[in-house]
């Protein structure tokens, strides 16, 4: 009896993909990890700056949220790296 192979997500083995697409897909988790590192600090600083302007608490919320953003960014980066290490 012929056993039907389960349908893979994406529907193909990906052999038709071009070199750029393969490289970008392989690099995507690393780009995402780096963005978390940078983005955490950016969101913390901008969010704190905006809240300071709104609540009139400057510069304290910007200082606090910057530190929180940097810490969360680092955590997100390390979390993503650990996950990628596990996958390998």
């Amino acid at each position, binding site marked *: 009896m012929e056993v039907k192979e*389960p*349908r*893979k*997500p*994406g*529907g*193909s*083995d*990906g052999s*038709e*993909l*071009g070199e*750029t*697409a*393969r*490289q*970008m*897909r*392989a690099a*995507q*988790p690393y780009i*995402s990890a780096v*963005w*978390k590192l940078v*983005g*955490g600090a*950016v*969101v*913390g600083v901008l*969010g704190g700056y905006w809240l300071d302007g709104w609540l009139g608490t400057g510069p304290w919320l910007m200082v606090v949220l910057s530190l*929180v*953003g940097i810490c*969360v*960014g680092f*955590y*997100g980066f390390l*979390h*993503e790296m650990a*996950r990628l290490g596990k*996958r*390998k």
Partner: protein
Amino acid sequence: MRKAMVLFASLFAATAWAAGSEDDVPGYILHHVVDSPYLEIEVPLGNPIKALEFPQWHVPLKANGCAPRMTEHGEEIPGLMDGCLDMSITKHTLMMWLAALLLMATLFIWGNRDKTKLVPRGAGANILEMLVLFVRDELAIKNIGKEEGPRYVPFLLTVFFFILFMNMLGMIPWMATATGNLAVTMALALCTFVITQVAGIRAAGLGGYLKHLTGGVAPWLWPIMIPVEVLGLFTKPFALTMRLFANMLAGHIVFFFLLGLIFLLGHPAVAAVSVPFAFAIFMLELFVAFVQAYVFAMLSALFIGMSVAMGHHHDDHGHDHPEAGPSHDQGKAHHA
């Protein structure tokens, strides 16, 4: 051929000479590359003629939002931030309409609507088929995949041909480059952005897509991580917007500046150098018109492909998925 080139170069020089004094060169360049509420016909060795003034349409978003106000530059209609939405037709709007009409006419004339005849006849139909197959085989399938790729071919074809026609219109005297306008490139990038997100939701499901936005971290970190991930979504359309806009605008500025050198240096002999250089830039711009249309469509396909692939390995964020997706293995296979 040589005579035609000399005639072409002379026309450039005459147009540049008609441009005016040396004081006005930056103003002249800016005037030609930015959008305006009228279409101007430049007559070599003559004065420009305002050929067509477009109707103005301002929509007030609040009471008296569009009432003219006195500013340091005189009486002005307020901008969007002050409650007035400017929906006026402009030179670039006209160019977009023209590009769309030309595109429809081209496809109507050369597109093969007779399904019994599979082989296109004539140069136009063959060129069109070559470009369509290139977008399908080299952009859609190679960046998105064999199964999902064909689904996005209509969008990629529309983007490719629309940008190409707008770029080419800008190379014709008296016309303008709509893709040298930030609003136009932003709207095009927004279309790619929406399609990319829809592709991601289709591949991962709404739950999987939203899970991606949490960055896979603990819920108490979401207030920081979700804005980071949402901000990250906009980096790709931002790159698309700026790339097309800057490339098209820069080419035209360089072209006009080379002609403007004749007036800035103040000697007609400069034309012997600047006109051939301007002609070379013009030729380069013709090439860039194709390259930028290709790059926009290629990057759109790449981003859609990445979104589809990301959706297929959403199990990374803690889901159990019995089957390994191709995107998992592609990276490993590639490194192996």
